[in-house]
């Protein structure tokens, strides 16, 4: 087998730059809130959140997950993690939480922003039990008001929330409106909420169409590594006009790439679906392990943590509270059960014409990872889809072993390549 040269990937387009500007503005708003007391901030979680409601009160959404992952990307997370471990957090606890707690209890100054203290801790619990504990801890440390917005887990055989589940969430949202009115001193403006929800609806629709574009061969972008670029504005700026404009630009850019037959790599040799969050502290290294093989991710479950739009959901301004509730209950990855995730991946493999599944199992996030061995069993034995399971972490740099990871990835793609050659030999003129 020919020795593969390392391929360094870099994105050639304007959306990465636009993303940097927009995120810079967002982080600047956090710093202004922290340093000049501008505005009230609401801490929230990324997965299926009611940011539309928070924005209707002009509150600033602060996402401890984003802060933790930025620390990891900037390779400064470890001292914060260690600080939390000295306080009694376990080596086996989620490192997102530890990095964030370490940051929260210090001066909260980071290379990207100064983090404001919360006026409201809004625990939009969707699936992840660690969220509940994370925000419980932040509430104890900050003494800020906490609101546990309870989202019943997707447990019905139909895969849909029940009528009672929906009612329960809508009623809690109404209670949340009262809390926001009290904290901000502002009256709830229904039409303003409708406008915001309409931005979210259009943004989600564009995002869904962008994701559909990776069905093309070659895929115009990498649905894992380039998706994360788009996920930041999707989560931090959803419900704003600026966020919507970003996705209009992104859609045009990606459509143009499809037209020109351009992909993220010089040559697309393998198409894979990837499950699990990325190793933020080593994102570039990780990407290059796949780029070297001409392997492009055509779909990823991680890009559906904050919302699952590609299977038909859209926020509806005519039913703003109900559609926020439906987004939280049903249309995001984390509130869906594990078997629904198997289905989602199976659809990706089939409809996005993938050759393989890669499972990146992270220790910190057991919502994602616990049981991924069973998932591998299902995809390899029941469906006959080549599946690679590799382990590291989303946040803690101590769990990334590059050499080991490289060996596994290389062995996997070598065998995929071998299969491909055999298949081409047995079907002359058939396979691509």
């Amino acid at each position, binding site marked *: 087998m020919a020795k593969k040269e390392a391929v360094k990937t870099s994105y050639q387009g304007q959306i990465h730059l636009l993303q940097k500007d927009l995120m810079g503005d967002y982080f600047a708003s956090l710093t202004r809130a922290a340093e000049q007391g501008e505005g009230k901030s609401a801490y929230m979680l990324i997965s299926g959140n009611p940011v539309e409601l928070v924005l209707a009160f002009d509150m600033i959404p602060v996402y401890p997950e984003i802060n933790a992952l930025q620390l990891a990307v900037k390779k400064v997370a470890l001292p914060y993690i260690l600080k939390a471990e000295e306080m009694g957090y376990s080596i086996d606890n989620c490192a997102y939480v530890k990095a964030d707690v370490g940051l929260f209890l210090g001066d909260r100054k980071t290379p990207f922003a100064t983090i404001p203290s919360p006026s409201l801790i809004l625990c939009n619990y969707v699936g992840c039990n660690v969220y509940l504990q994370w925000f419980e801890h932040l509430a104890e440390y900050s003494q800020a008001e906490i609101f546990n917005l309870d989202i019943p887990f997707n447990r019905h055989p139909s895969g849909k929330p029940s009528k009672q589940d929906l009612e329960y969430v809508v009623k*809690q949202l109404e209670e949340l409106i009262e809390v926001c009115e009290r904290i901000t001193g502002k009256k709830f403006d229904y039409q303003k909420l409708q406008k915001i929800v309409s931005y979210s609806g259009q943004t989600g629709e564009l995002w869904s169409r962008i994701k559909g574009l990776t069905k093309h061969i070659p895929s115009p972008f990498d649905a894992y590594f380039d998706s994360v670029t788009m996920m930041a504005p999707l989560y931090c700026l959803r419900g704003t006009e600026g966020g919507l404009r970003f996705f209009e630009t992104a859609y045009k850019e990606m459509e143009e790439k499809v037209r020109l037959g351009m992909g993220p790599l010089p040559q697309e040799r393998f198409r894979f679906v990837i499950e699990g969050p990325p190793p933020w502290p080593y994102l570039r290294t990780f990407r290059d392990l796949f780029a070297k093989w001409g392997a492009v991710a055509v779909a990823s479950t991680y890009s559906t943590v904050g919302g699952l739009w590609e299977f038909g959901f859209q926020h509806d301004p005519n039913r703003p509270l109900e559609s926020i509730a439906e987004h939280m209950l049903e249309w995001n990855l984390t509130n869906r059960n594990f078997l629904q995730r198997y289905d989602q991946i199976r659809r990706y493999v089939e409809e996005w014409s993938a050759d393989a599944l890669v499972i990146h199992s992270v*220790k910190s996030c057991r919502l994602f990872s616990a049981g991924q061995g069973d998932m591998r069993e299902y995809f390899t034995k029941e469906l006959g889809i080549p599946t690679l399971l590799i382990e590291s972490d989303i946040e803690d740099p101590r769990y990334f072993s590059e050499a080991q990871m490289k060996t596994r990835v290389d062995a996997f793609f070598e065998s995929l390549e071998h299969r491909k050659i055999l298949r081409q030999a047995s079907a002359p003129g058939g396979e691509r």
Partner: protein
Amino acid sequence: MKDDKVSMTIDALISKYREIVEESSFSYAAEWKAKHAGRKVVGCYPVYTPLEIIHAGGMLPVGVMGGGNRLEIAHADSRFQSFVCSIVKSTLELGLTGKLDALDGIVFHSICDPARNLASVFKRNFPNLMVEYIHFPQNMTSKHTAAYLTAEYQRLKASYENLAGRPITDTELRESIRLYNEQRRLVRDLYRIRSENPQNLSTVESYVLTRIGTLLPPEEHVGILKEAIAAIAQRHEKPKDRIKVVLEGSFCEQPPLELIESLEAAGCYLLDDDFLLGWRWFSKDIPVEGDPIQNLAQAYLDRSVFSGVKHDTREPKAKHLIDKVKETGADAVLILAAKFCEPALFDYALYRRALEAEGIPHLFLEFEEKMWIFEKARTEVETFVESMLFD
């Protein structure tokens, strides 16, 4: 001095049940099914299940509490990673090796992420088992929570009616509530004896007497508890020089009995603990009159004990623990957390902060249900005890 006859009765009782507890094979449930043709057995994963609903349908709810330290994990560790706690893997192993064959259903709950995913893995691997999942509310302050949980229990009732193949009546539900009230009251008595006169009842004894109730019908368990409590009342042991501690952190995966023994032998009286927490979930009786499903739901919200998986924001996390130390007059706290148990490990960070602020000494230990060697834990506890007794 010991009354030999009393001592024999209670010792014989405990050693008989200890054997059943340690075997973790559900042989009793299989026998029960053979004797009660057509009736079903439902396994209940920790922490809490509204047992009354299952029992009222003429079925036997049994605790599925992991595999203990006699089960070899040969298959489940390829499904769940090394960083997932022991009970998740051992429960799957029990299933994969046919040790749960007596069960017709199993129920999991929204306690943590691995347990939640385990419910799905069970569904896929055991298509003949009825797998239920209860989402317990995590908003304890909304005025709509009671209605939600009532609806959830109604859904559950319909699901168990389906399994039982017959309706579950309110009269049956009330009778089950009455029976489990009695069982929980007796278990509370057992715990009261231990916290008031720990020299008369060891933790392992009270543990076995409680745990056997997770395997037998409540009707039988009530009889056993009454007999045991009467026998224990005849004990008048002299207190030893031991420190008094409250134990916390073992509400889901259960430590081996040998470990519990080692903790006491190292010089502690365990005045209270959170073992088998879901099987003694209520601090007061659940009202029998009125709508039974509503009563069960309401009781979860206003008379259930503290649990780290309940996320009640109405009071600080450690308040119940500090209160317990003060109420029992304990000298210290022992945190015994299952390895990789995120709920318990996270709680510890807040406990430690609060205990230090209150000046209450504590020791933190991790365990695994499958552990075999207890020397290290014993030495750590001994050192802690000595520092308390002699410093």
